[in-house]
């Protein structure tokens, strides 16, 4: 068997597996884009900039006190999915959590460039109800994405539940972001699992003491297409932009370029 034959067989097998797993077509595109993670190459795929529709994401932050960063990243992730044909993002929360993590505040959405009108706030009593509402939202052609904010480890949100969401999302093309908190990450059928923590913001012009645009230390820990990576992201006017922490500190970059930005960022934090 020569190389061409081999790669052909491999592609066919991959196709079959993707079909069996009911993986969305877009996910296949990511897999084929391949060049992701390397800092060279123009056509590399950047998952935080153009995450395709119809996927389930998990956005984890370490603690409830990082709730702002978690929601900010989640909304930034799904914002590109808003179109005139899909004008709504459904944000779901369990009622009792509002006292702990706060309610999505309409006036603050302007920073992320989202019209407050576009966010539908759903508050349910139990996780089961929340998942039901999420599934209903997934079936709606007007919804761009569902962002579900779930603290703790409710029993109702097990692997089966996330699998249900994943299958339905793949069928209807509506993305789901589960914003979760805590150190443990139980098994789930999410296509991408992100770990997000807030990062010290950049400088603001004319004001040394004030913070600048929001920054996130993001790492893609797992994804269905095997892609991984770490980034330091900043919310710029119209989406996330990658920040080179080393360059900002004026440090010499390693010639190989293999230093992952987030490592540099962590170093800066300990310094």
């Amino acid at each position, binding site marked *: 068997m020569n190389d061409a034959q081999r790669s052909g067989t491999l592609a066919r097998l991959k196709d079959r597996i993707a079909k069996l797993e009911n993986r969305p077509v877009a996910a296949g595109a990511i897999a084929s884009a391949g060049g992701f993670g390397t800092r060279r190459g123009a056509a590399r795929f950047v998952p935080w900039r153009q995450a395709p529709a119809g996927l389930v994401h998990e956005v984890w932050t370490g603690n409830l006190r990082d709730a702002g960063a978690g*929601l*900010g990243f989640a909304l930034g992730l799904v914002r590109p999915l808003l179109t005139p044909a899909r004008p709504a993002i459904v944000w779901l929360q369990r009622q009792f959590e509002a006292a702990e993590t706060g309610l999505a*505040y309409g*006036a603050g959405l302007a920073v992320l460039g989202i019209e407050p009108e576009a966010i539908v706030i759903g508050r349910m009593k139990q996780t089961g109800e929340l998942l039901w509402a999420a599934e209903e939202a997934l*079936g709606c052609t007007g919804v761009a994405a569902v962002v579900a904010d779930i603290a703790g480890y409710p029993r109702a949100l097990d692997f089966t539940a996330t699998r249900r969401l994943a299958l339905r999302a793949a069928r209807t093309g509506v993305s789901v972001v589960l914003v979760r908190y805590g150190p443990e990450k139980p098994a789930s059928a999410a296509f991408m699992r992100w770990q997000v923590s807030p990062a*010290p913001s950049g400088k603001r012009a004319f004001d040394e003491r004030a913070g600048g645009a*929001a920054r996130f230390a993001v790492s893609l820990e797992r994804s269905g297409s095997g892609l991984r990576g770490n980034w330091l992201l900043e919310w710029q006017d119209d989406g996330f932009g990658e920040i080179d922490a080393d360059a900002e500190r004026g440090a010499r970059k390693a010639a190989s370029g293999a230093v992952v930005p987030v490592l540099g960022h962590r170093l800066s934090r300990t310094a």
Partner: protein
Amino acid sequence: MRLKALNRAALEAGLGEGQTLADARALCPNLVSRPMDRGRLMEAFGELADWLSAFSPLVAIHGVVAPMGDIVMDITGVSHLFGGEAGLLKEVTARLEGEGLSVSGAIADSVGAAWALSRFGKSETLGRVLAPGGEEEALAELPVMALRLDEETSAGLATMGLKRVGQLYGRDRRALKARFGEGLLVRLDQALGIAGERIVPRLPAPERVAERRFGEPIGLVDDVLATIADLARRLCAELEAAREGAQTFHLFLYRVDHKLMHLAVNAASATREAPHVARLIAHRLERLQTDFDAGFGIDMMRLGATSVSRLDETQLGVFEGADTRLDLDRFYDRVTSRFGPAALSRSKFADTHIPERAVTLEPVVARTGDAPQAMPDATQPRPLRLLPVPEEVTVVAEVPEGPPGRMQWRRVSYRFSRVSGPERIGVEWWRPGEGALTRDYYVAEDDEGRRFWLFREGLYDETRQPRWFVHGFFA
């Protein structure tokens, strides 16, 4: 203690209303008495009135002349279903008497005349149906009390020798008014049908209805659901024929034991899609699962529509997909019918600077019509999440009126490296409140990049001990 209400047997034994319990016991040693529970009686009476809406949707409890009031029904346009007005009256009284209740009723063009006939009609006229225009003649022989007068007025009339209603006809109205006040004339005019009288229905009166009576009462939820689907189909066909859609749907379940279950669902936009309406009501029923109690069975169901508005057929273009707006509305309906209207909401801005008042959550269904306010000044920083109740924290500031330096919040300390502010938000003095204080808001970022929205409540010349609160979190 005195007797307040007696049954027929007690009346035959010679007891009367107002008698003391001790006297009554002496006259009738085996008397069974119960203390009166007004609240429960009112409730039971109300339930009975609601149940009577099986006959006509407009039922009210009217007036305070009788201890509990009287049940008034507007039977315009329904009597033909029962073989005429006499048939309707017979049916209603028979149903109630079958339950062991003492009933007296009458049908007339005015509430006053019907009241008079039902209370004071002679036994052969009891249950009489008064033809239109017959009030004057029918009431002439009745005592003046039949006009729903208070004790004082009727006693006054009696001293003047005016004992029957007929004697009041043609009297000098000015003299009567001077002596007894406006009330007497109003009551007289109301009884004769000269003056109108409003009745306030207890239940919402649907503009369009579909109903179904069962020969044999049903009790299973599945049967109820099947009937709902059928009723929804009929109601929606009716709406379609009239080119209308409705936003609110009411389901009335009439139980054989004279209880009524009523539930309503709201749709985000006017609709006449039968499967959708049926599903909304089914969700609503599911929500009260534990409260659903068919008792001894349900013998009638009615589905009604209110908030009816014109709705023309929409034609989808060949190249257009499904209507997203409509699809979103259907989604809102499905969720809110199950979890209640407050489950889904949108931000709505109000014209104020106080952050917790500036944005309110407005249910997506049944939105108020007032014009949406524009978003407040976007140049000021506002957090992504706002705590419903600000949390008090201990803050160390470098200088008394200065920005926060360190904070202790939920038992963890934070050191702020970057702070911007203050944004001073003053008190809205036109709102009543117990000495609200000026707030100075800061955006404070800790060493790890978490950004909080903090405020100090009170300036140092307003209060000796200003307090600090966390109010929100930024991305």
